[in-house]
């Protein structure tokens, strides 16, 4: 569960994690019923629309572009046009 919490990037305390565990396993139990069905010949459905090749032309869309102040309007921490986060130590 600890690894999962980290993977999901959720700030959850160990106590809270414990209380979530039973709900977690209960839900996983429900999924067992899927083994009843034969899907050996079935393809997955990722897209119910059946559409393909929905693409856009390489044009600049001025209407949708935001001004700098619009882009920053909802951020709690900004500085000279940038978004701000505490210094990251781990370089990607």
């Amino acid at each position: 569960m600890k690894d999962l919490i980290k993977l999901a990037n959720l700030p959850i305390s160990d106590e809270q994690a414990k209380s979530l565990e039973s709900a977690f396993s209960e839900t996983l139990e429900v999924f067992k019923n899927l083994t009843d069905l034969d899907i050996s010949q079935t393809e997955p459905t990722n897209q119910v629309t059946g559409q393909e090749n929905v693409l856009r032309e390489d044009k600049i869309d001025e209407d949708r572009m935001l001004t700098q102040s619009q882009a920053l309007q909802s951020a709690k921490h900004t500085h000279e046009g940038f978004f701000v986060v505490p210094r990251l130590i781990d370089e990607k």
Partner: protein
Amino acid sequence: MTNQKYQLVCGMEVHAELKTNSKMFCGCKNDPFHAEKPNIYTCPVCLGLPGALPVANKQAIEWTIKLGLALGCKINLFSKFDRKHYFYPDLPKGYQISQYDLPFCYDGKIETELGTVRIHRIHLEEDTGKLLHKTVNGEQVSLIDFNRSSVPLIEIVTEPDITTAAHAAAYGKQLRKILQYLDIANCDMEQGGMRLEANVSLRPVGETELPNYKTEIKNINSFRFLEQAIDFEIDRQAELLANNQIVSQETRGWNSVKQVTYSQRSKEDAEDYRYFPDPDIPPIRFTEEQIAAIRETIPELPSAIATRWQQEYGIEPNMIEQIIVNTTVSRQYDKLFTNAKNEGISVASLLKNILSKKVPSPLEAGAEQTLLQFKELQKTDVVDDTQLIAIVNKVLTENPDISAKYFSGQKQVIGFVMGQILRELPKKSDPAQVREAIITQLEATK
């Protein structure tokens, strides 16, 4: 540097930003390097605002296919985009739209002067925002600019065919040349328009199995650093292996000041990206006809032009290197060379003069002017015979031993005489005319 005991096993991953007008999944301007301010080329989509949805840039996809075809790759006629999940402040959605198991292109190759390198796959994805580390009001912070977010990024992954650091650099350079030649990417390495990553491991010389580990060297932005970093890694790993130590599976960076690679992150547990097909983007299906149409747009590639020019005109490869910049330029030179050949002019000589700036290039002056000026340069002045004979005799008189040397068989003294005479004559004298005059006079004194 080659190690005697161990052999380099190296593959590369290169990311290049495509020079489309707009971004990969939205219509924002694709020009992060020249943006005057941060966060001015964003919209709800590339900023990852709630409710925003991606729509793929057709040009970026076609250019990816174009590169794949140019590198001899197979094309997946049915393809899709997948979500690649990880958390980082420069990744606004918390996932990057990329390609997982059905990349657009696979199984190709690049030829370099140091050997072939096979291409494993080429896929298309979106770039992240950019981070700047600063101190603001006494606090250490990272500043984020999303102008670059969602710029189309092409990723080229090779098989581990690279055998030396120089080979890696040759590969990178050739790839960049092709990208620029196809006019799909600028590959400005200093700005990060092209980023290099090398996976480095060693195995005992003679063994054929792949090593069970690999070290990833990331964020290298020059070919020089690439070579240095790989050479450093070879030595570092060789020493560890020789002492029966394990080389950790990790990510390392290159410190160009200290000239060392350094550990950045352990890769013992490879990241779990939880890929799944992006439900917001319907899949892509090409027909053979569409692929053929893209293939038609590929110009004659640098390597093909170079071979052709070498064979037809006998030009040295290092001179060709300097002028194969892009399709427009090479076409101009092609025209020039054809005209030159028709007029019986030595193309090699012509090019030499262009490169040493004695004659303007056809880009500046046009093929006609270039040829004209070259011919001017080659023109020689005809020297008045009487004047010439007078000077020849003067030099022969001043150097009495010449005649004797000449008749005793040392014909090369003519060269010395030539030099003396030419100094006295106007610059563009015809050496053949002078030579004839000297011999005539000498024979006359017999």
